[in-house]
């Protein structure tokens, strides 16, 4: 807190924002629990000048990897700045985790993930390189899909998604791809095409998924029926925490899909949506994410996900989460007329 709120090292954004806080972060925030004192400022990241997010402690020439943006599901995108030191440490953690999952080095990667200003695509390129592989990518603009879906144009959304799979097909057919990263909806589309399933079975050793939700039954179908013998691992993260939580090692087909965040930098809690109180272990609630590192501070960010609160790994701060799903859209039971 000293780093982020000291006039010499803090970012212009947080120093300005601190003037309207009802507490003094440097005095009052002493523990993980105290992060809940912060208001959820995530929405302000839609408008703030990106340079103002960089802590001044990095000096006049910080090494910026890139400016990354949220998906843009709800209006204007939110923006964060990725600095070299955090990027390197996040990369090292993820690579170590993949190696622990048995992923061999020197395999080529195919990332069917958002390109452009999104973090996932960029992170995957660096990971592939760090593991001695060559990254192959496709063009993918998730915002366009959301826009045409919102406009009720399901056919166009469908055509765009098939276009993404077509791009992947060319790479899978002609290149030696050992690692495939994608989103659950795209993996489902890929699995519809028998020829692509066959190619993946032949060539790929690990399928990683991120950026959406995969239920236990679907995960089990992939692991037992569609891609038996392949390693299939998930990652649950967010651009707003500058990274993610990998799937816990050694889970069986029957286990819930548990994600452990790299605390203390990225931490989760699972709360009742109405009260904000932490739910008991094993109960479902809405996910709150925190990022606290030297390069960035974003505490108390209520995500649009529900999850089961799980016991963390030893030494981990906060909660682990499992069975992540979107916040439910409750049907208001207004449908009454008619007999069906």
């Amino acid at each position, binding site marked *: 807190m000293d780093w982020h709120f000291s006039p010499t090292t803090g970012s212009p954004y947080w120093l300005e924002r601190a003037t309207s806080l009802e507490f003094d972060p440097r005095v009052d925030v002493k523990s993980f629990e105290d992060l809940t004192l912060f208001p959820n400022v995530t929405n302000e990241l839609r408008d703030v000048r990106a340079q103002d997010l960089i802590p001044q402690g990095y000096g006049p020439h910080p090494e910026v990897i890139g400016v990354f943006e949220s998906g843009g599901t709800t209006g204007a995108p939110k923006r964060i700045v990725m600095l070299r030191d955090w990027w390197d440490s996040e990369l090292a953690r993820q690579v170590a985790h993949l190696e622990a999952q048995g992923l061999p080095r020197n395999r080529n990667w195919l990332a069917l993930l958002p390109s452009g200003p999104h973090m996932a695509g960029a992170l995957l390129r660096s990971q592939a390189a760090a593991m001695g592989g060559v990254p192959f990518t496709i063009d993918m603009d998730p915002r366009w899909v959301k826009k045409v879906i919102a406009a009720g144009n399901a056919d166009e959304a469908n055509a765009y998604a098939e276009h993404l799979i077509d791009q992947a097909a060319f790479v899978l057919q002609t290149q030696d791809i050992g690692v495939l990263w994608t989103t659950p909806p795209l993996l*489902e589309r890929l*699995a*519809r095409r028998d020829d692509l399933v066959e190619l993946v079975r032949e060539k790929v050793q690990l399928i990683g998924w991120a950026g959406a939700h995969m*239920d*236990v*039954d*679907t995960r*089990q*179908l*992939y692991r037992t*029926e*569609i891609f038996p013998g392949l390693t299939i691992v998930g990652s649950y993260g967010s651009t707003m925490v500058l990274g993610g939580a990998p799937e816990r090692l050694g889970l069986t087909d029957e286990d819930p899909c548990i994600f452990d965040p790299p605390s203390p930098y990225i931490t989760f809690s699972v709360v009742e949506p109405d009260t904000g109180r932490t739910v008991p272990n094993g109960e479902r609630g809405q996910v709150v994410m925190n990022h606290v590192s030297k390069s960035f501070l974003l505490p108390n960010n209520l995500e649009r996900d529900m999850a089961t609160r799980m016991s963390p790994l030893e030494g981990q701060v906060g909660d682990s989460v499992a069975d992540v799903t979107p916040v439910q859209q409750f049907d208001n*039971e207004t*449908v*009454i*007329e*008619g*007999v*069906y």
Partner: protein
Amino acid sequence: MSTTAELPALDALGPTGAYHTHERQTITDVAGNPLAELSLVPKLYVTRAMAALHKAETLGVDERLAALARAGEAHATGTVDGVPAAQHQFIVSRASGMPISVVRSAGEAIARSAAEVYRSVQYARPVGAVNHWRDPLTRTGRAVWTRRGDVFAVHAPGNHPGVHGLWLEALALGYRVAVRPSRRDPFTPHRLISALRAAGFGDDQVVLLPCGYDAADEILRGADLAMAYGGEDVMRKFAGYSTMLPQGPGRSKILLTADVDWREHLDVIAASISHEGGRACVNTTAVFVQGDTAPVARAIAERLAAIPSLPPEDEHAVLPVLPLADAQTVERHLLARAAGAVPWLGGDGVVDDLGDGSAVLRPAVHELDRPDAEQAGVELAFPCVWVAPWTPEAALEPLKDTLVLTAITHDTHLVDRLVAEPTIANVYVGDHPTYWIEPGIPHDGYLADFLMRTKAVIRD
């Protein structure tokens, strides 16, 4: 929860057998007591199940007709998966709130549809068409009646178990079939499909895919042709898709002209409103009267008022039952829509609390003052009728958009026009209730009109 762990499991019935999922929904009875845990399949499973249906064989026609007849009989009176018919009917009645006598009759009707399905579908075959290209008539050129596809999907409703008699016609015609059950009554299609499998249909020829909305769309996507039940929203969603057959509102009506004495037809009128728990698309929603509407409304109200409030499993139950909160929602909607109408029955409300968390929906009778009053199209899933005036000047306009119109009249010129009107699906003239339905008689056109086409064949 330990109690739900002991609930009977209602698995999906997939192309390689029963499929038990982690994602499940507890199906409760109308009082909120859990009855079963329904497996909900993910979209990916649907994709693969539909692909399996496409790859599957079709049983020969003799085999499938015999299997259909056996399955219908087992469903109605036998024991399926260890569940005797009486127990099944009790569960459906408790889950859906449908009077048990209606559930039992629906089972019998399904058995009859299954037994007579070949005759039924043959009525839909154009007189110029033969069933097979090997028919000698094709040597000189002939139409052959053929399927428009191989895989048919149904988004089934839960309003009435009898709806499951219809898609049996698709099986008879050689389609492989996927059914997405309603969460209000997954029991009926589960039992029927289990019986079909026991009778000889392969697991990859008829499947039950309970699922959420996202996966439900995948069932339609994976089928060649599909039928979905729903309201105006479903009609709009699928309008313009030649591969979709939306089944929309019924808005069935009765017309009483001045040249008949309506008192002689009161039995048919009252039964058309209250039969089938008032939940079927063939139940009468509006009665149009040429002449004074008040005596008609009064007489109907007197008849319907005498029906007792009973739990659905009672042999004498006639009225539908819902969870109390749902019943209150329906009541609020009725009272809001009835503003401006004259209430003869149910004007203060229709909910009769049974005290166990469930409530009977008692009948409602309202009188409208204009032929074009919009309430006449308000179809609610309980005995609820709107009595409106009709004049020859109003003509056909108020009678349009109707599944069944019973015209009690001697005016054959009027009947000519009713039969010619495209938005009236069925016309019953005289003392016939709107819910009359028979195998071989079209319900909303023949389903086979949608499932089949003719194809020219000539050979040496």
